């Protein structure tokens, strides 16, 4: 193949990445966009394998086959609810790869490619950002899985330590950039960067991890760009920069959907998942109900809105909720789902979960569409949701003030399925539970829903 064909193939690949990313951003074309981006990657890899004078085919082929195998198995077998973790892991791998590429290039040729300081600088930045992405992603993974406490980790002299670390990393980066890349310096830079990644993510609450993963995703793009500068390879620069920028925008969008700022996420606001403030029931009483009574209410309603939340995901009750929906629909009840943008622990969590159980996409209503419907709704069923239906958000000095909520309290009656009166992610009490028209069905979501289904069937 003549060299300019190769060059043009790379250019084509860059353009395809752009189109793919663009298409990924809109519901109707997202799958096509993903396919476009994947083919862009395929073209780039194929061109690289064909063109460059590959000498050590053995290692290369082995490594690629191994990676592809691991990737496929992970992608196929993971639970839908574990998506954020998986993306986090993949992300860490990408960042790690970029750091290793920069590192290997430094080992190989001293100052590679272009002129001194620029190349040295991009190499050390590549190592730094890549390593931060790597270790940060694994802490995020641990927090999401629960290996590491979800609560913000605080320890004495935290600030002093962080400041020290910052200064040393800055020093090491500049030192490497200036052309000093003996193995020891490089290892120190690596080590410090890994530590930085850990310390940056540890203090952030577990439930904010999706935002953290998105930010780290942006970093891993920048790390790839830096590696591109090191190797003088424009496709790395382009794809990396695209992800870097898009990731930043996406992170911002995610924060906005949660009504928070990035600084607020990074430096902790209301604690992590672990923080369970005791329910301050005071002298208020709740009305309890059971599956039998609930089933009657549902079966004879004309319209029912189901509000799923984090508890649905925890209980893995998506199939049960689908079954109940089908039974009610068979009886002529109009059933829809109200999806709050930040219900669950990742954006789109509820959509993904319900889609897994084959709940038709059309039944899922956005917050803005469903809120005007509540006053006309007979029964609202809140399944493992808490903060997203907390009327305190309308009060000015609550922890979740200003967060838009689903107005379930305006429905004729409300059935709340959860295991206790304990609070949700924000750690605050929920006055909804004490309302006149609210009934509590204390149980695990999966059990409660299958009991409800059984009772409805028997009616």
């Amino acid at each position, binding site marked *: 193949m003549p060299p300019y064909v190769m060059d043009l193939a790379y250019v084509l690949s860059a353009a395809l990445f752009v189109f793919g990313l663009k298409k990924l951003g809109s519901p109707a074309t997202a799958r096509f966009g*993903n396919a476009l981006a994947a083919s862009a990657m395929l073209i780039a890899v194929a061109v690289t394998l064909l063109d460059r004078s590959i000498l050590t085919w053995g290692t290369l082929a082995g490594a690629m086959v191994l990676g592809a195998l691991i990737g496929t198995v992970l*992608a196929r077998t993971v639970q839908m609810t574990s998506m954020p973790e998986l993306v986090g892991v993949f992300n860490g791998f990408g960042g790690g790869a970029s750091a290793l590429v920069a590192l290997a290039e430094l080992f190989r040729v001293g100052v590679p490619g272009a002129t001194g300081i620029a190349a040295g600088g991009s190499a050390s930045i590549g190592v730094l950002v890549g390593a931060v992405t790597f270790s940060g992603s694994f802490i995020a993974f641990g927090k999401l899985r629960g290996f590491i406490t979800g609560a913000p980790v605080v320890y004495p002299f935290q600030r002093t330590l962080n400041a020290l670390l910052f200064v040393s990393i800055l020093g090491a980066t500049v030192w490497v950039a200036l052309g000093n890349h003996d193995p020891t310096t490089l290892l120190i830079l690596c080590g410090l960067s890994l530590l930085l990644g850990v310390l940056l993510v540890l203090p952030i609450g577990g439930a904010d991890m999706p935002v953290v993963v998105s930010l780290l995703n942006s970093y891993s793009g920048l790390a790839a760009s830096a590696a591109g500068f090191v190797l003088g390879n424009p496709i790395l620069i382009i794809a990396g920069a695209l992800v870097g920028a898009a990731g930043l925008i996406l992170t911002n969008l995610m924060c906005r959907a949660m009504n928070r700022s990035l600084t607020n996420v990074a430096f902790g606001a209301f604690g992590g998942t672990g923080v369970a403030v005791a329910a301050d029931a005071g002298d208020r009483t709740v009305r309890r109900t059971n599956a039998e009574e609930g089933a009657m209410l549902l079966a004879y309603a004309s319209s029912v809105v189901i509000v799923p939340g984090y508890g649905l995901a925890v209980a893995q009750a998506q199939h049960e909720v689908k079954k109940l929906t089908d039974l009610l629909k068979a009886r002529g009840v109009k059933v829809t789902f109200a999806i709050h943008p930040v219900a669950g622990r990742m954006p789109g969590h509820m959509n993904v979960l319900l889609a897994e159980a084959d709940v038709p996409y059309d039944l899922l209503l956005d917050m803005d569409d469903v809120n005007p419907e509540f006053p006309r709704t007979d029964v609202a069923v809140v399944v493992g949701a808490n903060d997203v239906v907390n009327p305190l958000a309308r009060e000015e000095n609550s922890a979740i003030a200003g967060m838009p909520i689903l107005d379930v309290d305006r429905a004729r009656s409300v059935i709340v399925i959860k295991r206790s009166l304990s609070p949700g992610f924000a750690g605050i009490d929920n006055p909804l539970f004490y309302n006149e028209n609210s009934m509590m069905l204390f149980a695990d979501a999966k059990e409660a829903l299958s009991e409800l289904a059984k009772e409805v069937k028997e009616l």
Partner: protein
Amino acid sequence: MGEWILGLYVFVLAMLVGFEVITKVPPTLHTPLMSGANAISGISLIGAILVTGSDGGQWATILGGIAVVLATVNVVGGFLVTDRMLRMFRRD
């Protein structure tokens, strides 16, 4: 014009494209988009291939080999998992 400065142009323009391309994405798509972008950032696979394949000594091969494994996992897994997520958003 050095190659480096042209690289900088490419970088700045690509960033601008990235900013423009993502504007209003509905929350439903945040996770798949994140995951798709993440797969794209596995582009360092190209770098890893170049470093590993070029036979630049033991260290380069070892580090490069690990990088190839990691990046391939990111790329293959990333695109597959994104597709799996997106397949779920079907309309009745």
